């Protein structure tokens, strides 16, 4: 039994309960080579000539405010380089904002890249412990989750004793997903990680992600596969060059996004 997203969101807002709350979030990155001989020389020249350094900041995320309710599947959509991944890194606390603030209730489990924390020389099982520990879980929590991880990944036990460098990309994705879905957290982030999975595993994961929400967890889902986004998520945020273009029920946001892209395409094909 799934309540509608608006209902969940309304209830959560009334209680002042949020899973993730971002206020005026801005993140600027430096452009260009961070350190190079050319840069060193021009910095010295600027100092000698008493010129200030040229501004190099580029806002990847610009004044973004939104709230994600508990038990909500929230989509981040937008073109490449629009700021989706930066936003998920900020929520995961991997990088700090230039200004603004994010509040998160509970533990965040980010799966931002398949095999992000996998070490190719370690076996599947050793990597489960490595990944879990790095995410801040203790040995008991990892040991409790391991049998379920093994079962869910569908990888044979003798393969789990093999270094992951011999795994295919799809198998690595399976293991990464199994770890992410079976370790306990309050907020899960999946950034474009279902790309290499086969159709069957994709369906399984989609169902599992919805199940997470049914158990009260919040999910932030990033993908360019819009049908998948529609089927998994309940609300969404469309981000464009760092700014929020739209935020609301997933159908409306995806429709608007598709429409704008279609228009851009026709516009560019006319020129």
């Amino acid at each position, binding site marked *: 039994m799934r309540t509608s997203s608006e209902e969940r969101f309304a209830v959560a807002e009334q209680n002042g309960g949020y899973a993730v709350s971002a206020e005026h979030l801005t993140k600027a990155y430096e452009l260009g080579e961070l*350190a190079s001989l050319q840069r060193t020389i021009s910095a010295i020249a600027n100092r000698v000539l008493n010129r200030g350094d040229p501004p190099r900041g580029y806002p990847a995320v610009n004044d973004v405010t939104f709230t994600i309710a508990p038990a909500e599947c929230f989509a981040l959509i937008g073109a490449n380089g629009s700021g989706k991944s930066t936003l998920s890194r900020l929520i995961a606390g991997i990088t700090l904002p230039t200004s603004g603030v994010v509040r998160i209730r509970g533990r*965040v489990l980010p799966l931002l890249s398949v095999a992000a924390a996998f070490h190719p020389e370690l076996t599947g099982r050793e990597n489960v412990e490595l990944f879990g*520990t790095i995410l801040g879980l203790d040995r008991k929590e990892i040991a409790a989750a391991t049998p379920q991880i093994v079962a869910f990944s569908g990888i044979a036990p003798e393969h789990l004793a093999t270094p992951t460098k011999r795994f295919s990309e799809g198998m690595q994705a399976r293991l990464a997903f199994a770890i992410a879905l079976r370790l306990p957290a309050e907020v899960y982030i999946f950034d474009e990680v279902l790309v290499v999975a086969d159709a069957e595993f994709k369906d399984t994961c989609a169902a599992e992600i919805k199940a997470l929400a049914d158990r009260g967890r919040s999910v932030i889902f990033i993908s360019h596969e819009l049908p998948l986004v529609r089927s998994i998520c309940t609300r969404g945020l469309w981000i464009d060059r760092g700014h929020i273009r739209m935020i609301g029920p997933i159908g409306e946001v995806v429709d608007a996004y598709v429409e704008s892209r279609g228009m851009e395409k026709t516009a560019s094909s006319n020129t």
Partner: protein
Amino acid sequence: MRPTAESDTRGPAAEPATAEEAPTMSGLPLVQTVAPASRRVRLRDIVRSWPVARVITIRDFKVQYKQSALGPIWLVIQPLAVLASFVVVFDSVAQVNTSGIPYPLFALVGVTVWTFTSFSIPAGARSQIVNKRIIRYVDCPRIAFVTASIVASLPVLAAPLALTLASVYLMGYHLSLSVLALPLAIAWLLLLVWGLTLGLSAANVRYRDVNSVVPFLLQGGLFLTPLAYPLSAVPERLALVLSFNPFTGVVEVWRWTLLGSTVDSTAVAIGLAVTAVLVVVGWRVFARMEVRFADLI
């Protein structure tokens, strides 16, 4: 997870590191805040991040001797090879005066200190870079990579130290009571390497120039530290200059604890002061840069 706590100081409540502290569905989970900060790593994170340091250390141990025919035997071959060259140059050619201590034994202590230093410093300076994927994709305590690099280097210290102790015993040389100070001598060496590693690993994230500086420093240090010769054999003025290399004090103390040789107390005092400065500076550099690691690496 380590984002800053609601009350801006990252109190214990902000870090659900253990099962008891971990948020549960029954109670309201703890709120964590991610906000601009100039630094967020605390000294206590060194201890708290031990579980992460532990798995990274285990990983590094497992990976270290993969596809190596001799594996851990290298731990002994390397110091013995350096010792042999010291014996040729400083005992046979230069004939340094070691005040009655058999030269191989005298040099073995210096070799022990330097084998560890020249292994652990580059490993430590690389520690953030080699864990770049973890830094970019997970919020984990990055101080743990520094801890892990030092712990993973310990066998490189233990092997030649065992060789030294065995040689002292086999050559019928008597250990004096000063050997009880050996843990302090080891602690000093580790603290010095830790301080250097902190600063170098952080600087390396932004400036890969560190990779060019470290081998050159270690090469200089091999000669500008009294490893193969006693500080007492150096003219007084020059000895004072060498004392500002903190490894000079370290190796003097090491030889005193293991061989009962005389110690230049000025060198020890200066060495301790320089070590303190390096550790404070290293920590501050690390703490200041750590918040931007994921952006810069």
